[in-house]
């Protein structure tokens, strides 16, 4: 496996008690400057609108969309493993051919996107920003998707005989 790294400055996994508050402070900081929640699925929507030149697109959210992989790349490159070219989804590919894995991932992502748009937010929008605003709708959406995801994972585990 080919991997590239700048320097191993970050641990393999920053502990939750540092990463969690860091995310929380980013959310508060963004409210302090723009009075807006920091959500990712909305950024996808506005990126699509900006690229296809739809009227009323919030172009600045495309910049947020672009910022995520830039910061992510820096974070990845500061770890011991760094950038590792691979297919990903190891647990699925150990059990299934690549094409089937790709198809399952695609269907999962379409359902996830559809659901996020219907619910009006995803893990960042409802899960962190909405709950932090003490919005009842966001608490309901967050509890629902957490519960549904745990049940679906259990279902996949049973169907795959514990393999996935």
């Amino acid at each position, binding site marked *: 496996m080919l991997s590239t790294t700048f320097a191993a400055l970050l641990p393999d996994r920053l502990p939750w008690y540092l*990463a969690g508050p860091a995310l929380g402070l980013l959310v508060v900081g963004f409210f302090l400057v723009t009075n807006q929640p920091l959500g990712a699925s909305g950024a996808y929507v506005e990126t699509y609108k900006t690229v296809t030149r739809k009227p009323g697109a919030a*172009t600045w959210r495309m910049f947020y969309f672009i910022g995520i992989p830039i910061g992510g790349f820096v974070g990845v490159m500061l770890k011991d493993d760094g950038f590792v070219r691979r297919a990903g989804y*190891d647990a699925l590919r150990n059990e299934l051919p690549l094409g089937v894995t790709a198809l399952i991932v695609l269907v999962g992502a379409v359902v996830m996107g559809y659901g996020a*748009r219907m619910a009006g937010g995803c893990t960042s929008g409802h899960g962190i920003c909405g709950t932090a605003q003490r919005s009842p709708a966001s608490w309901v959406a967050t509890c629902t998707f957490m519960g549904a995801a745990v049940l679906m994972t259990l279902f996949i585990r049973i169907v795959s005989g514990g393999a996935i």
Partner: protein
Amino acid sequence: MKTSTAYRVLGLLFGAGFGFVLAAANLHEYDTIHNMLRLEEFDVFLLMGAAIGTSLPLLWWLEKRNTKTAFAGTLTLSRSKPTRQHVVGGALFGIGWAVSGTCPAPALVMLVSGAGLAIITIVGLFVGLNLRDRQVARLAGTATAADGEHRNLARTS
């Protein structure tokens, strides 16, 4: 600096900060999310709890003292009543999340960490979000107003 430029710069910076933390906490890895949803590791639940635990009281306090934001007047939080769409949409989101093992922001980091299949996840997300948008337009309804991100956005493009 024009406000629209400031919004773009801020968007880029906060996006980068968010992506950096996701990568640092390994949230872009399928295994991290999968093990959490299998209830084998509780770090991500604790992480989300700590994120909410930090931002909720701070936002409450800032709202109470009518804090002025830098570019958008007084800080206002939005709170909506739950509807059926929050439940149905949330359930669909959760099912898709369990299958694809990553959510919208970490999928972008997954891709730049070298995992090629993440491109499929990202394309799928765009397709799914658009399907719902088109359906809403066809039914001449309104998109779900929520307090996550799809609320009345600043049109300061």
